[in-house]
């Protein structure tokens, strides 16, 4: 069974600094997709970044980048130049290719300190 583990329930970062959120997953599939979603307080969950497992190159989206280690089944999110608006719950998620069920981790609550 697929599982997604986020071992950091809470993290904090100073404004303008860099923070890395951890995620590991367990799967027997070779083809799958990984996501990071952001859920700000009282606001809707939105996609931050997506990684295809068949791609070796790490995905980047402006200040957000991932470190995808397929052999280690690790998928961490790095936020550079943290901003106050980055404060949110961050969920790591996994879906097998061809499946419809997106599995979420339990989330990491990120606080940005001014």
């Amino acid at each position, binding site marked *: 069974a697929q599982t997604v583990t986020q071992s950091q329930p809470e993290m904090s970062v100073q404004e303008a600094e860099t923070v890395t959120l951890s995620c590991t997953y367990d799967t027997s599939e070779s083809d799958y997709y990984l996501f990071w979603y952001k859920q700000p307080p009282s606001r809707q969950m939105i996609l931050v970044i997506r990684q295809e497992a068949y791609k070796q190159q790490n995905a980047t989206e402006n200040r957000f980048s991932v470190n995808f280690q397929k052999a280690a089944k690790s998928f961490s999110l790095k936020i550079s130049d943290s901003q106050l608006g980055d404060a949110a719950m961050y969920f790591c998620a996994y879906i097998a290719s*061809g499946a*419809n069920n997106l599995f979420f981790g339990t989330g990491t609550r990120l606080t940005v300190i001014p």
Partner: protein
Amino acid sequence: DAMVIQNPRYQVTQFGKPVTLSCSQTLNHNVMYWYQQKSSQAPKLLFHYYDKDFNNEADTPDNFQSRRPNTSFCFLDIRSPGLGDAAMYLCATSRDGRNSPLHFGNGTRLTVT
């Protein structure tokens, strides 16, 4: 703006009293999902529709049902809510499922008294 809208944002119901949560989308996406999210837990998929095809997760209680009368609307019906059903319910859509990104609504927080 195209979006996913959930109504109401907050819903209070009594133990055993049926309740319906609604979701609408202007994205014209094929797939609509209902997730249950309890405090400090991962969102858990209850079921989803691919167009008119209904797909129920194996561990979704029989108490939970869904309707999708058309592309734009999807409803979550809880026939006899228990205290354990208090949670945030998230509706999401995706263009064609699988690896397409999900677009979420704001959620409905259900309280059962």
